[in-house]
Protein backbone atom coordinates (compact mmCIF):
# COMPACT_ATOMS: atom_id res chain seq x y z
CA UNK A 1 0.00 0.00 0.00
CA UNK A 2 2.78 2.44 0.85
CA UNK A 3 4.34 1.91 -2.59
CA UNK A 4 1.01 2.85 -4.15
CA UNK A 5 0.98 6.07 -2.15
CA UNK A 6 4.55 6.87 -3.22
CA UNK A 7 3.60 6.35 -6.87
CA UNK A 8 0.41 8.43 -6.83
CA UNK A 9 2.09 11.16 -4.83
CA UNK A 10 5.12 11.37 -7.15
CA UNK A 11 3.13 11.33 -10.39
CA UNK A 12 0.17 13.55 -9.58
CA UNK A 13 0.20 15.29 -6.22
CA UNK A 14 3.82 16.37 -5.99
CA UNK A 15 4.49 16.39 -9.70
CA UNK A 16 8.20 16.99 -10.16
CA UNK A 17 7.82 19.73 -12.77
CA UNK A 18 4.55 21.43 -11.94
CA UNK A 19 4.66 21.34 -8.15
CA UNK A 20 8.35 21.11 -7.29
CA UNK A 21 9.90 23.06 -10.17
CA UNK A 22 12.60 20.55 -11.00
CA UNK A 23 13.62 19.89 -14.58
CA UNK A 24 12.09 23.08 -15.95
CA UNK A 25 14.83 23.51 -18.57
CA UNK A 26 14.01 20.33 -20.54
CA UNK A 27 10.32 20.93 -19.81
CA UNK A 28 10.47 24.23 -21.68
CA UNK A 29 13.23 23.22 -24.09
CA UNK A 30 12.11 19.93 -25.64
CA UNK A 31 8.35 20.32 -25.45
CA UNK A 32 7.75 21.60 -28.96
CA UNK A 33 6.69 18.17 -30.25
CA UNK A 34 5.06 15.16 -28.57
CA UNK A 35 7.53 12.69 -30.10
CA UNK A 36 10.62 14.44 -28.71
CA UNK A 37 8.81 14.74 -25.39
CA UNK A 38 8.36 10.97 -25.27
CA UNK A 39 12.03 10.41 -26.17
CA UNK A 40 13.17 12.75 -23.43
CA UNK A 41 10.90 11.01 -20.91
CA UNK A 42 12.46 7.66 -21.80
CA UNK A 43 15.98 8.97 -21.32
CA UNK A 44 15.10 10.69 -18.04
CA UNK A 45 13.39 7.57 -16.64
CA UNK A 46 16.39 5.44 -17.53
CA UNK A 47 19.01 7.75 -16.03
CA UNK A 48 16.94 8.76 -13.01
CA UNK A 49 16.40 5.19 -11.80
CA UNK A 50 20.05 4.19 -12.34
CA UNK A 51 21.36 7.42 -10.78
CA UNK A 52 19.13 6.97 -7.73
CA UNK A 53 20.39 3.41 -7.19
CA UNK A 54 24.04 4.49 -7.51
CA UNK A 55 23.72 7.54 -5.27
CA UNK A 56 21.78 5.45 -2.73
CA UNK A 57 24.73 3.08 -2.38
CA UNK A 58 27.23 5.93 -2.29
CA UNK A 59 25.29 7.58 0.50
CA UNK A 60 24.86 4.35 2.52
CA UNK A 61 28.25 2.72 1.90
CA UNK A 62 30.64 5.64 1.56
CA UNK A 63 29.38 8.98 2.82
CA UNK A 64 27.66 7.89 6.03
CA UNK A 65 30.23 5.30 7.30
CA UNK A 66 33.11 7.71 6.78
CA UNK A 67 31.22 10.68 8.21
CA UNK A 68 31.63 12.84 5.12
CA UNK A 69 28.00 13.60 4.28
CA UNK A 70 28.96 17.22 3.62
CA UNK A 71 30.49 15.96 0.36
CA UNK A 72 27.01 14.85 -0.79
CA UNK A 73 26.49 17.54 -3.42
CA UNK A 74 29.94 17.14 -4.98
CA UNK A 75 29.94 13.35 -5.04
CA UNK A 76 26.37 13.06 -6.35
CA UNK A 77 26.89 15.46 -9.24
CA UNK A 78 30.13 13.73 -10.20
CA UNK A 79 28.45 10.34 -10.12
CA UNK A 80 25.53 11.58 -12.20
CA UNK A 81 27.76 13.31 -14.77
CA UNK A 82 29.96 10.25 -15.25
CA UNK A 83 26.94 7.94 -15.17
CA UNK A 84 25.34 9.79 -18.07
CA UNK A 85 28.53 9.34 -20.08
CA UNK A 86 28.68 5.67 -19.14
CA UNK A 87 25.03 5.05 -20.05
CA UNK A 88 25.68 6.68 -23.41
CA UNK A 89 28.68 4.44 -24.15
CA UNK A 90 26.98 1.24 -22.96
CA UNK A 91 23.76 1.95 -24.84
CA UNK A 92 25.68 2.61 -28.05
CA UNK A 93 27.35 -0.80 -27.73
CA UNK A 94 24.53 -2.93 -26.33
CA UNK A 95 21.37 -1.57 -27.86
CA UNK A 96 21.83 0.63 -30.94
CA UNK A 97 18.05 1.07 -31.51
CA UNK A 98 17.56 2.38 -27.97
CA UNK A 99 20.60 4.62 -28.44
CA UNK A 100 19.07 5.93 -31.66
CA UNK A 101 15.92 6.83 -29.78
CA UNK A 102 17.45 8.34 -26.65
CA UNK A 103 20.96 9.35 -27.75
CA UNK A 104 20.43 13.03 -28.46
CA UNK A 105 18.75 13.59 -25.10
CA UNK A 106 21.41 12.00 -22.92
CA UNK A 107 23.95 14.87 -22.82
CA UNK A 108 21.14 17.26 -21.87
CA UNK A 109 20.34 15.21 -18.81
CA UNK A 110 23.45 16.09 -16.81
CA UNK A 111 22.07 19.58 -16.32
CA UNK A 112 18.58 18.31 -15.56
CA UNK A 113 18.17 19.27 -11.93
CA UNK A 114 15.41 16.69 -11.45
CA UNK A 115 18.02 13.90 -11.45
CA UNK A 116 20.14 15.44 -8.70
CA UNK A 117 17.00 16.64 -6.92
CA UNK A 118 15.50 13.15 -6.76
CA UNK A 119 18.80 11.67 -5.58
CA UNK A 120 18.96 14.18 -2.72
CA UNK A 121 15.26 13.80 -1.88
CA UNK A 122 15.62 10.02 -1.65
CA UNK A 123 18.28 10.51 0.99
CA UNK A 124 16.39 13.17 2.93
CA UNK A 125 13.18 11.10 2.93
CA UNK A 126 15.06 8.08 4.26
CA UNK A 127 13.72 5.65 1.68
CA UNK A 128 15.04 2.09 1.50
CA UNK A 129 16.34 0.77 -1.80
CA UNK A 130 13.03 -0.57 -3.16
CA UNK A 131 11.16 2.59 -2.15
CA UNK A 132 13.92 4.68 -3.75
CA UNK A 133 13.59 2.84 -7.05
CA UNK A 134 9.79 3.09 -7.01
CA UNK A 135 9.98 6.78 -6.10
CA UNK A 136 12.47 7.65 -8.84
CA UNK A 137 10.58 5.71 -11.51
CA UNK A 138 7.28 7.33 -10.49
CA UNK A 139 8.88 10.77 -10.48
CA UNK A 140 10.18 10.18 -14.00
CA UNK A 141 6.72 9.10 -15.12
CA UNK A 142 5.30 12.25 -13.53
CA UNK A 143 7.85 14.25 -15.51
CA UNK A 144 6.69 12.42 -18.65
CA UNK A 145 3.00 13.06 -17.99
CA UNK A 146 3.64 16.78 -17.54
CA UNK A 147 6.03 17.02 -20.51
CA UNK A 148 3.85 15.12 -23.00
CA UNK A 149 0.63 16.92 -22.11
CA UNK A 150 2.47 20.24 -22.29
CA UNK A 151 3.94 19.33 -25.69
CA UNK A 152 0.45 18.44 -26.91
CA UNK A 153 -0.83 21.88 -25.96
CA UNK A 154 2.16 23.61 -27.52
CA UNK A 155 1.65 21.83 -30.84
CA UNK A 156 -1.80 23.40 -31.02
CA UNK A 157 -0.42 26.73 -29.88
CA UNK A 158 1.59 27.16 -33.08
CA UNK A 159 -1.63 27.89 -34.91
CA UNK A 160 -2.75 30.66 -32.57
CA UNK A 161 -2.32 34.35 -33.36
CA UNK A 162 -0.62 35.89 -30.33
CA UNK A 163 0.40 39.42 -29.41
CA UNK A 164 4.11 39.94 -30.18
CA UNK A 165 5.30 40.23 -26.60
CA UNK A 166 3.61 36.97 -25.59
CA UNK A 167 5.18 34.83 -28.29
CA UNK A 168 7.67 32.14 -27.36
CA UNK A 169 8.62 31.77 -23.71
CA UNK A 170 5.95 33.95 -22.04
CA UNK A 171 2.95 32.06 -23.45
CA UNK A 172 4.68 28.73 -22.72
CA UNK A 173 5.09 29.77 -19.08
CA UNK A 174 1.48 30.91 -18.76
CA UNK A 175 0.29 27.60 -20.26
CA UNK A 176 2.53 25.73 -17.82
CA UNK A 177 0.91 27.75 -15.04
CA UNK A 178 -2.57 26.70 -16.13
CA UNK A 179 -1.41 23.09 -16.35
CA UNK A 180 -0.01 23.41 -12.82
CA UNK A 181 -3.38 24.78 -11.73
CA UNK A 182 -5.03 21.66 -13.15
CA UNK A 183 -2.58 19.43 -11.31
CA UNK A 184 -3.39 21.24 -8.07
CA UNK A 185 -6.73 19.48 -8.28
CA UNK A 186 -4.91 16.32 -7.19
CA UNK A 187 -3.85 17.92 -3.91
CA UNK A 188 -5.23 16.10 -0.91
CA UNK A 189 -5.43 12.82 -2.79
CA UNK A 190 -2.91 11.19 -0.47
Amino acid at each position, binding site marked *: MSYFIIIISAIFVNNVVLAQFLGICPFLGVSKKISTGIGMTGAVTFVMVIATIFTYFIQKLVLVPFGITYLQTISFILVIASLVQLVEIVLKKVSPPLYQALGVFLPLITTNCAILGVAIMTVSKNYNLVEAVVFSAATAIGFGVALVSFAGIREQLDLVDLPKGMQG*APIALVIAGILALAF*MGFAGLV
Partner: protein
Amino acid sequence: MNQWKNFSKGFFKENAIFSLLLGMCPTLGVTSSAENGLGMGLATTFVLVMANLVVSVVKDFIPDKVRIPAFILIIATFVTIVEMIMQAYVPALFESLGLFIPLIVVNCLVLGRAEAFASKNNVFSSIIDGAGMGLGFAMALTMLGSIREILGSGKIFGITLYPEDYGMLVFVLAPGAFIALGYLIALINRLKKA
Protein backbone atom coordinates in the same frame (compact mmCIF):
# COMPACT_ATOMS: atom_id res chain seq x y z
CA MET B 1 36.95 45.63 -22.87
CA ASN B 2 34.79 48.25 -21.29
CA GLN B 3 34.32 46.90 -17.75
CA TRP B 4 31.18 48.88 -17.03
CA LYS B 5 29.48 47.41 -20.09
CA ASN B 6 30.72 43.98 -19.04
CA PHE B 7 29.15 44.48 -15.62
CA SER B 8 25.86 46.02 -16.68
CA LYS B 9 24.97 43.57 -19.47
CA GLY B 10 23.78 41.08 -16.83
CA PHE B 11 21.02 43.41 -15.70
CA PHE B 12 19.12 44.05 -18.86
CA LYS B 13 20.58 43.12 -22.22
CA GLU B 14 21.73 39.62 -21.33
CA ASN B 15 19.74 39.11 -18.16
CA ALA B 16 19.86 35.43 -17.29
CA ILE B 17 16.13 35.07 -16.73
CA PHE B 18 14.49 37.64 -18.98
CA SER B 19 16.57 37.16 -22.13
CA LEU B 20 18.47 33.90 -21.83
CA LEU B 21 15.95 31.81 -19.86
CA LEU B 22 18.72 30.17 -17.85
CA GLY B 23 18.33 28.92 -14.32
CA MET B 24 14.57 28.54 -14.44
CA CYS B 25 14.24 25.94 -11.68
CA PRO B 26 15.36 28.12 -8.75
CA THR B 27 13.68 31.12 -10.39
CA LEU B 28 10.29 29.47 -10.15
CA GLY B 29 10.92 27.34 -7.10
CA VAL B 30 12.09 29.81 -4.48
CA THR B 31 10.39 33.08 -5.38
CA SER B 32 7.31 32.69 -3.20
CA SER B 33 8.56 35.78 -1.32
CA ALA B 34 10.92 38.67 -2.09
CA GLU B 35 13.23 37.67 0.75
CA ASN B 36 13.70 34.11 -0.55
CA GLY B 37 14.32 35.44 -4.05
CA LEU B 38 16.98 37.85 -2.82
CA GLY B 39 18.66 35.18 -0.67
CA MET B 40 18.78 32.72 -3.52
CA GLY B 41 20.05 35.42 -5.90
CA LEU B 42 22.89 36.40 -3.58
CA ALA B 43 23.89 32.78 -2.94
CA THR B 44 24.03 32.18 -6.69
CA THR B 45 26.01 35.41 -7.18
CA PHE B 46 28.63 34.25 -4.68
CA VAL B 47 28.99 30.87 -6.42
CA LEU B 48 29.09 32.55 -9.83
CA VAL B 49 31.81 35.06 -8.88
CA MET B 50 33.99 32.49 -7.12
CA ALA B 51 33.58 29.86 -9.84
CA ASN B 52 34.38 32.43 -12.55
CA LEU B 53 37.45 33.52 -10.57
CA VAL B 54 38.83 30.00 -10.13
CA VAL B 55 37.96 28.87 -13.64
CA SER B 56 39.73 31.83 -15.22
CA VAL B 57 42.80 31.23 -13.04
CA VAL B 58 43.12 27.52 -13.84
CA LYS B 59 41.83 27.59 -17.42
CA ASP B 60 45.30 27.10 -18.92
CA PHE B 61 46.01 23.97 -16.85
CA ILE B 62 42.81 22.06 -17.61
CA PRO B 63 42.92 19.80 -20.67
CA ASP B 64 40.15 20.67 -23.07
CA LYS B 65 38.49 17.25 -22.94
CA VAL B 66 37.83 17.20 -19.21
CA ARG B 67 37.00 20.88 -18.81
CA ILE B 68 33.25 20.40 -18.20
CA PRO B 69 33.66 17.89 -15.33
CA ALA B 70 36.42 20.10 -13.92
CA PHE B 71 34.13 23.15 -14.03
CA ILE B 72 31.33 21.20 -12.36
CA LEU B 73 33.70 20.12 -9.61
CA ILE B 74 34.82 23.72 -9.00
CA ILE B 75 31.20 24.90 -8.90
CA ALA B 76 30.15 22.07 -6.58
CA THR B 77 32.93 23.03 -4.16
CA PHE B 78 31.63 26.57 -3.81
CA VAL B 79 28.04 25.39 -3.57
CA THR B 80 29.04 23.21 -0.62
CA ILE B 81 30.72 26.22 1.01
CA VAL B 82 27.58 28.34 0.53
CA GLU B 83 25.45 25.52 1.91
CA MET B 84 27.53 25.32 5.10
CA ILE B 85 27.70 29.10 5.58
CA MET B 86 23.92 29.48 5.14
CA GLN B 87 23.17 26.59 7.47
CA ALA B 88 25.33 28.22 10.14
CA TYR B 89 24.33 31.88 9.86
CA VAL B 90 20.85 32.06 8.27
CA PRO B 91 19.18 28.76 9.25
CA ALA B 92 15.65 30.07 8.57
CA LEU B 93 16.50 31.01 4.99
CA PHE B 94 18.38 27.73 4.60
CA GLU B 95 15.24 25.85 5.63
CA SER B 96 12.93 27.69 3.25
CA LEU B 97 15.25 27.40 0.25
CA GLY B 98 15.85 23.74 1.08
CA LEU B 99 16.64 21.52 -1.87
CA PHE B 100 17.39 24.45 -4.16
CA ILE B 101 20.70 25.32 -2.50
CA PRO B 102 22.52 22.11 -3.52
CA LEU B 103 20.79 22.48 -6.88
CA ILE B 104 22.79 25.66 -7.62
CA VAL B 105 25.32 23.12 -8.98
CA VAL B 106 23.07 22.30 -11.91
CA ASN B 107 21.99 25.89 -12.51
CA CYS B 108 22.86 26.23 -16.19
CA LEU B 109 23.66 29.92 -15.61
CA VAL B 110 26.75 29.14 -13.50
CA LEU B 111 28.16 26.47 -15.82
CA GLY B 112 27.20 28.59 -18.82
CA ARG B 113 29.22 31.59 -17.63
CA ALA B 114 32.21 29.40 -16.71
CA GLU B 115 32.17 27.84 -20.17
CA ALA B 116 31.23 30.87 -22.25
CA PHE B 117 33.11 33.63 -20.44
CA ALA B 118 35.56 32.67 -17.69
CA SER B 119 37.33 30.01 -19.74
CA LYS B 120 38.21 32.62 -22.37
CA ASN B 121 38.83 35.83 -20.45
CA ASN B 122 41.22 37.16 -17.80
CA VAL B 123 40.60 37.02 -14.06
CA PHE B 124 39.43 40.57 -13.54
CA SER B 125 36.83 40.66 -16.32
CA SER B 126 35.62 37.19 -15.26
CA ILE B 127 34.93 38.44 -11.74
CA ILE B 128 33.12 41.49 -13.12
CA ASP B 129 31.10 39.28 -15.46
CA GLY B 130 30.17 36.92 -12.61
CA ALA B 131 29.12 39.81 -10.37
CA GLY B 132 27.05 41.44 -13.12
CA MET B 133 25.29 38.27 -14.20
CA GLY B 134 24.77 37.17 -10.59
CA LEU B 135 23.34 40.49 -9.43
CA GLY B 136 21.15 40.66 -12.54
CA PHE B 137 19.85 37.21 -11.64
CA ALA B 138 19.30 38.32 -8.03
CA MET B 139 17.44 41.41 -9.25
CA ALA B 140 15.16 39.32 -11.45
CA LEU B 141 14.47 36.85 -8.61
CA THR B 142 13.71 39.68 -6.20
CA MET B 143 11.35 41.30 -8.73
CA LEU B 144 9.47 38.05 -9.29
CA GLY B 145 9.46 37.33 -5.57
CA SER B 146 8.08 40.82 -4.80
CA ILE B 147 5.32 40.51 -7.40
CA ARG B 148 4.25 37.11 -6.09
CA GLU B 149 4.40 38.25 -2.47
CA ILE B 150 2.44 41.46 -3.10
CA LEU B 151 -0.26 39.76 -5.18
CA GLY B 152 -0.38 36.60 -3.11
CA SER B 153 -0.22 37.72 0.50
CA GLY B 154 -0.27 41.52 0.40
CA LYS B 155 3.22 41.88 1.83
CA ILE B 156 6.67 42.84 0.64
CA PHE B 157 9.75 41.69 2.55
CA GLY B 158 7.31 40.73 5.31
CA ILE B 159 5.84 44.28 5.59
CA THR B 160 2.05 44.24 5.24
CA LEU B 161 0.63 46.40 2.45
CA TYR B 162 -2.98 45.27 2.62
CA PRO B 163 -4.87 42.59 4.58
CA GLU B 164 -3.90 39.07 3.59
CA ASP B 165 -7.56 38.07 3.03
CA TYR B 166 -7.60 40.12 -0.18
CA GLY B 167 -4.49 38.39 -1.57
CA MET B 168 -4.67 35.96 -4.48
CA LEU B 169 -3.31 32.83 -2.85
CA VAL B 170 -2.57 31.21 -6.20
CA PHE B 171 0.41 33.52 -6.75
CA VAL B 172 2.21 32.09 -3.73
CA LEU B 173 1.51 28.54 -4.92
CA ALA B 174 3.13 26.76 -7.85
CA PRO B 175 0.88 27.88 -10.76
CA GLY B 176 1.34 31.54 -9.83
CA ALA B 177 5.09 31.24 -10.35
CA PHE B 178 4.67 30.21 -13.97
CA ILE B 179 1.97 32.76 -14.71
CA ALA B 180 3.72 35.69 -13.00
CA LEU B 181 7.02 34.95 -14.75
CA GLY B 182 5.28 34.54 -18.11
CA TYR B 183 3.64 37.94 -17.90
CA LEU B 184 6.80 39.56 -16.52
CA ILE B 185 8.84 38.34 -19.49
CA ALA B 186 6.08 39.43 -21.88
CA LEU B 187 6.14 42.91 -20.33
CA ILE B 188 9.93 43.13 -20.63
CA ASN B 189 9.80 41.92 -24.25
CA ARG B 190 7.27 44.65 -24.93
CA LEU B 191 9.42 47.34 -23.27
CA LYS B 192 12.47 46.22 -25.25
CA LYS B 193 10.66 46.61 -28.55
CA ALA B 194 9.39 50.08 -27.68
